[in-house]
């Protein structure tokens, strides 16, 4: 299914509104999904995984579990990144701004891959960021880094020997003072990296997508359109 970038944003935002997401969250979430899709990172596919859960997740608050001078730990209370990721990133940016270095950990959180779309905002605030999460049971970990001076993040997915069954957390490390890059420690061998996406990949994906439009999963798109119709009023006129 071919759609435009702005069409994806508009339809997603209306769908999120119909699902009960808050005004600030739904606009951001729509832009993040579209940002991922525009840059070849399968935003719509990831959204498709989250869509069924959004009706009960919308409106969930980030609950603060613990805080120290430069650390904040939240629980997403089982909700996905679309409902909680923006505020988590903002909390990290605020903390890094005050402390220079900040760690934000979000526990009990789903659809963490969608966080990538939110990270560009931290760079705009002059903050470098490293996001890290592991897939429970699949021995895979993901690291995404974005320097304050860069437009695109670098993504690495790698196999880890440490199996962890119930890790639903996301860790964000943010710094105003130095760059954070996903360069692996020497005991992480290159052959264990299963996916690596660099800025050049994303730039070319974006140029192609803007010129030719976005190809998205028809089923997810149809679901989105159906949900988005929930904001409309049949006034009989």
């Amino acid at each position, binding site marked *: 299914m*071919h*759609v*435009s*970038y*702005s*069409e994806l944003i*508009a339809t997603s935002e209306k769908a999120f509104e119909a699902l009960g997401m*808050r*005004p*600030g*969250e739904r*606009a951001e979430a729509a*832009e993040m999904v579209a940002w991922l899709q525009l840059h070849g990172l399968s935003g719509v596919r990831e959204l498709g995984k989250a869509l069924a859960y959004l009706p009960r997740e919308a409106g969930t*608050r*980030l609950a*603060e579990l613990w805080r120290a001078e430069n650390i904040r730990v939240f629980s997403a209370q089982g909700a996905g990144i679309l409902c909680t990721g*923006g*505020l988590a990133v*903002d*909390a990290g*940016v*605020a*903390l890094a*701004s*005050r402390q220079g270095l900040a760690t934000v950990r979000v526990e009990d959180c789903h659809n963490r891959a969608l966080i990538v779309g939110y990270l560009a*905002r931290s760079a*705009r*605030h002059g903050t470098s960021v490293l996001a890290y999460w592991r897939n429970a049971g699949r021995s895979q970990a993901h690291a995404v880094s974005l320097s304050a001076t860069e*437009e695109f993040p670098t993504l690495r997915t790698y196999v880890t020997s440490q199996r962890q069954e119930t890790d639903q957390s996301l860790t964000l490390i943010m710094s105003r003072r130095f760059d954070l890059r996903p360069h692996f420690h020497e005991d992480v061998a290159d052959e264990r990296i299963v996916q690596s996406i660099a800025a050049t990949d994303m730039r070319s994906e*974006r140029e192609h997508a*803007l*010129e*030719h*439009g976005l190809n998205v999963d028809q089923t997810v798109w149809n679901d989105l359109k159906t949900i988005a*119709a*929930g*904001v*409309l*009023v*049949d*006034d*009989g*006129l």
Partner: protein
Amino acid sequence: MALHDTLSTDLPPAPVPGLRPADEVMALSRLGSLHASRLSFSRSLVRQMIRERWQLECERFALDAQGYGDAIYRVATPSGIFRFVVFAHYLDPSQRRDRVVANDWDLAFVLCKGDLSSSDLEELRANVPRQEAGRCSARVLTLSRANRSQRNFEAVVERLAEGRQPDAEWFENVGYLYRTTAVYGNGKFGIGDYEYLRQGKTFARPFAAELFTVYMVRHFAFAQVEHIARQRAPATAVPLAAPLKRYLGIGNSTGLGMAPFLISHPQLIDRWIHMRETAIARIHALGPITPGQHDRLAVLVERARRYIRQTHTDDAAQSESNRRIEQDLAALQRWLSLMARQVDTQHGPQPDWRQLSAMAQRHGSVETQELINSLLLELHPAQVNALEDHLSVDSAPALQADMTAATLRDLIETHYAWALAYNFDDPAEQRYFWYRAATKEEPRVGRRGQDRGAEREMLLGVARTIRHCYDALSAFIDTTPEADVVDFLLAEPDYRAITRRIQTLATLPYGEIRANLLGPDCRPLDLLRCKLSFFGAGKFDPRSDRWVRITLFQGAPLVDDLSSVDEEFDWFMATRPDPRAVETS
């Protein structure tokens, strides 16, 4: 290439002193009194077409004797090749409706990039006439449709077929052969995104592609009426005289669909208004009015009077406003006569532009004041034209999470006192609500408590949201006075969007329309007129307080003129052509 490095659009020019205060400029009644100016997008587009010597060529003109069929125009600009493709078919007059909810039109057309294969054309033929019900590819940049003016179209064809020219008076009331009801751009129904357009130079300015599409359908309309006349009476038919063609624009019916844009794009609105105000302030800073400027102003004021006299509307308020403008302009002419001797002889106090504006402010209606501002801009291309490169904004609203909550409250008190002045405990201040109708998602206004849909209200009541945010923030600060904005948002996540808006607009004084859009005093028409004036619309003819007819490109140079006129081709407030000019053309 970076996404937006083609125009230096994101940075405004150096600030100038003497800008009018936002409380004055952003009052809805004043925004609803704006007139087109040389900074309007259609004016800017025409200057660009002339400057860059765009080449327009008809590649295909496959119309039958009744004018039905299709046509393709090739458009060559320094930055690319484009195609304007139009499909014309019979429309039962009973189906000819202005509203966006119509399903059939006399014309459907697109602007595309690049070359077209026969399969591309077939794809367009299958989808473009269906408009919202069709799908287009990213190579399509705009999608639109138009209906004939029932009054003018057939009458013009008939006259041309008889070998005679139509009466110019006909076009005073209805200054067009076709009227568009929507011009879609920026990704609607699968078409190309504005983000892509901005990478090129041809249509990088706001709404340039949409307005060029309107210009092209005007060109096609002339070719179509002449074609039908020729087919009807090959022996006697004559072409439409050039002065009459120039006097004909394209009509447009605009409803509430345009209104939410002004609220949802506050940074862009700030920039548009800011550039207009910058132009006015630059002109006010100039020295005394020179004899040459005095004479030119006198010519323009006389033309503006004639233009207003030739603007006809059934709307009582607009008619009254037009009468008042004419009176005010007559008073201005008397003042100019008094000043003429002083200006010519350079003796005595010399009037300047600031004095002129002050006089208008003291004695003229708001609409007259803004008309005079448009006249000032018209007289000063050197101070105004370059501002057209600063009418786009790239940056998105940004949240400053590390700001203290107390600072956020200060921002509200400083920049949103106008919003806090409304009493939302009074039900009248929330009498109306905005919603999206199921029919084509058209925005509409309903009466709370009477009409359906309040539970799905669009969030256009900025003043009300500000009040709610302010109250919640004040309560939060009372318990946690040292907290940051992020702490406030963790406690009150509902205010995330409005907080971002407040912080973003704190440095952008013209971003916020200072009115309660839910209250009894809101006239949606004012929102429409504000945006339309930036498009370059004229002949405002309100059909209710929720939709308006206007004319675009009236007076604009013809395609054939583009290679022979310069950028300063004068089509400001075009008036009815002199019959002698029509005869001799």
